[in-house]
């Protein structure tokens, strides 16, 4: 038959074409190794689907440790700076392809989860509004705390989100790049959920201001978020080393400041002010936080800190970075203490003892999960004392 196929005829279904194809196919498969990426060192017992689809997608030469390609870059930046280079970070690795998302999420699994969260959010909001829950929220909490201060916290999340852009560009491994983009998207999702809650409230509460103007003023000019804002600006734009960006944001600032604001302030207190709405959103953020924690702990603790050639060096660098970023974060928390003067006080909940206990939980968690694994010596009581000095 003719080899010209026209009219959209398909080889799978057109009997004449199919006959020619079948006659050409070997009787036995030519290769017995059917497992793609069989040469990858798996994290678990065998190479999983995530490792098959993600590992070694990056074409880096072997002078970037772990790369399988050879030679130079075929085009460089103006002036000759390389596409990707070891100089983009002070961290060293024997193999930049080692990182794994502990949840083994490639793109399809990642968006599937988030799509479910979106559908459930939509259903939840409908039920919440139809149920009339909104009547029970304390007005000061609703209009000032959620309107202004939760709104302002959205900028912290948005700034952290943007800190992932250059890390997405510059990092040296494929699983790293995918993880960084995903945990970045979660941060902008947080900022958007905060706005979503405010827009939702505006629909239910006549006169509630959904505009971002007041929160932005609070974030850029107010005293409560001053330390946070300065730290976020420095993580986002003041820092060039992609590992330092991730370390400062996800190993210091967010597990301390982010966790206190989300978990110990908004999540813990909202119920006391009749607010069952905020926990719905914050709990999603806490899910993202725990997934991100798994990812960044894998990057820094599971991979870099125990690297067979550079582990000790990396750990000492992480200690230096902790020295640099911890005081700023403590200062951000200290400034944030000003918020307690703005809310109606509830004994045993918003008083100093309760705040100290909340800070204790956050700092102890951080010490156990982030400081101890790199042998970082920290006097949490002293740090908490410094933070508490910000109480008005």
């Amino acid at each position, binding site marked *: 038959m003719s080899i010209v196929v026209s009219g959209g005829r398909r080889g799978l279904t057109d009997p004449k074409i199919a006959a020619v194809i079948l006659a050409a196919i070997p009787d036995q498969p030519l290769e017995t190794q059917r497992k793609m990426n069989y040469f990858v060192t798996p994290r678990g017992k065998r190479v999983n689907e995530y490792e098959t689809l993600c590992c070694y997608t990056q074409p880096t030469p072997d002078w970037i440790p772990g790369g399988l390609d050879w030679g130079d870059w075929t085009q460089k930046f*103006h002036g000759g700076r390389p596409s990707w280079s070891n100089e983009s970070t002070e961290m060293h690795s024997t193999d930049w392809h080692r990182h794994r998302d502990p949840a083994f999420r490639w793109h399809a699994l990642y968006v599937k989860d988030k799509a479910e969260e979106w559908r459930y959010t939509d259903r939840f909001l409908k039920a919440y509004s139809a149920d009339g829950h909104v009547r029970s929220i304390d007005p000061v909490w609703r209009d000032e705390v959620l309107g202004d201060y939760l709104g302002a916290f959205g900028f912290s999340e948005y700034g952290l989100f943007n800190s992932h852009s250059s890390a997405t560009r510059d990092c040296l491994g494929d699983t790293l790049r995918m993880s960084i983009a995903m945990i970045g998207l979660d941060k902008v999702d947080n900022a958007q959920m905060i706005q979503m809650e405010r827009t939702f409230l505006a629909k239910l509460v006549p006169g509630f201001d959904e505009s971002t103007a007041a929160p932005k003023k609070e974030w850029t000019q107010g005293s409560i978020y001053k330390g946070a804002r300065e730290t976020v600006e420095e993580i986002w734009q003041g820092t060039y080393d992609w590992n330092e960006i991730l370390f400062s944001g996800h190993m210091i600032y967010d597990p301390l400041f982010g966790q206190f604001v989300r978990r110990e302030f908004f999540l813990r207190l909202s119920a006391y002010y009749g607010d069952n709405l905020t926990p719905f959103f914050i709990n999603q953020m806490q899910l993202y936080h725990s997934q991100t924690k798994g990812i960044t702990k894998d990057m820094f603790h599971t991979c870099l800190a125990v690297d067979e050639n550079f582990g000790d060096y990396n750990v000492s660098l992480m200690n230096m970075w902790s020295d640099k970023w911890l005081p700023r974060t403590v200062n951000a928390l200290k400034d944030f203490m000003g918020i307690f003067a703005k809310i109606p006080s509830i004994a045993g909940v918003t008083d100093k003892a309760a705040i100290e206990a909340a800070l204790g939980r956050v700092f102890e968690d951080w010490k156990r999960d982030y400081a101890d694994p790199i042998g970082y010596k920290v006097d949490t009581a002293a740090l908490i004392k410094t933070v508490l000095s910000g109480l008005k």
Partner: protein
Amino acid sequence: MAISSATKAATDALEVNRAPVSVGAQEVHKWLQSFTWDFDKNRTKYSTKYHMANDTKEQFKLIAKEYARMESVKDERQFGSLQDVLTRVDAANRVHPKWNESMKVISNFLEVGEYNAIAATGMLWDSATAPEQKNGYLGQVLDEIRHTNQCGYINYYFAKQGQDAAGHNDARRTRAIGPLWKGMKRVFSDGFISGDAVECSINLQLVGEACFTNPLIVAVTEWASANGDEMTPTVFLSIETDELRHMANGYQTVVSIANDEAASKYLNTDLNNAFWTQQKYFTPVLGMMFEYGSHFKVEPWVKTWNRWVYEDWGGIWIGRLGKYGVESPASLRDAKKDAYWAHHDLFMIAYALWPTGFFRLTLPTAEEAEWYEANYPGWYDMYGKVYEEWRARGCEDPNSGFLPLQWFIENNHPIYIDRVSQVPFCPSYSKGASTLRVLELNGKKHSFSDQWGERMWLSEPERYECQNIFEQYEGRELSEVIAEGHGVRSDGFTLIAQPHTSKDGRLWTLDDIKKIGCVFADPLKSL
């Protein structure tokens, strides 16, 4: 409004209306532009000579959650078809062997483009100042992760289900050996991520996506299905649904710099360079993959090229940008000439170097030769005759001891590599427009095959220092290079690459190559 009266108003409102209320993506997105704030250090980490306007809007107004919902719906359909009906009908074993081989290259090389586009759009997300513009690029970052995984999935599927897993199963490790790899890196990897951020956007979005994505992704699905492959259309058409947003991003990039003075000075030069960069590789490689990598033919590549590259892109798409001062690239005319013969020239070289591939190549059959001659008059005298000679000398048979590369050497037709595009060319035996130009810098010789690349190199030689395969392998024996690059099958000695796809033909081994004693030489050294 006073606080207490707001609560009362809310309570009153509920008494009147208890209809369930939710919040749509657009209602959140409309605030996005106000999410950023000014501060001293707020500037991009990647310099660009252009200024991207602070108020640039995006066309597709997605928020994170809505993005996920949309993509996940598409994923369900696509992976559902693959895992369900296509597996049940054993579709991977109903693909023509030649096309099975082509997909080793097409899917893996496209994967590299998708992968680098993650980093490229990460850079653009950093460079843009307007939150909406950042958001458009961010959506693309995630899309390109999706596409990377999808391309991988094609090779994964073919490896698991298909007739020849070798090459599908390890492309990421063996692809770097051969002559097509470095050129692919120029267009799909470094061209997207290394340079002025806007220049990279032009390479990726304005040219790569708007111009070559159609031939690559859409045309490939037609060739695939004609040759029995329904997996590729299932995946690639799903990829294509995201590309509209990417082209819109490229369009917005131009809009965002349109009022900047730098645009009137540099934009058309950057566009011309980007177009030439992309076409220099894609024009011959796509044509070669379609025509020489298939049994059943859809249409001559030159027709596809004229319709999509010359008319649709060079005419309509660039025309739409005319109001921003964008002109059709000056190099488009030279490219049009390349679209006729360049892929025939390249196949000859690729076939001559077949042992360095991670796929099997096939010489045209008699009926294909007829098709070539009918569509490209003059084909037989230039190429067909030579292929007959190669075949007669036993180029397909491991016992022959003949590699077509020897024919080039015997006839004194040296193969060079263009420094800028990394595309191989044979100036003394080609019908395309390649001409040899050799320049020397600091004692090192550089060869070029066209004036546009040569100009790029002359103005910025430090950007194009990459050694080519002949420099890299100089003095080394071919079988050694193949073994080192993992170019063998799981038995440890049969090559992944083969010079035929005949089911009765014998397969070459490392020993067959070793016997020939082929040692790489750098042609520039003998000039």
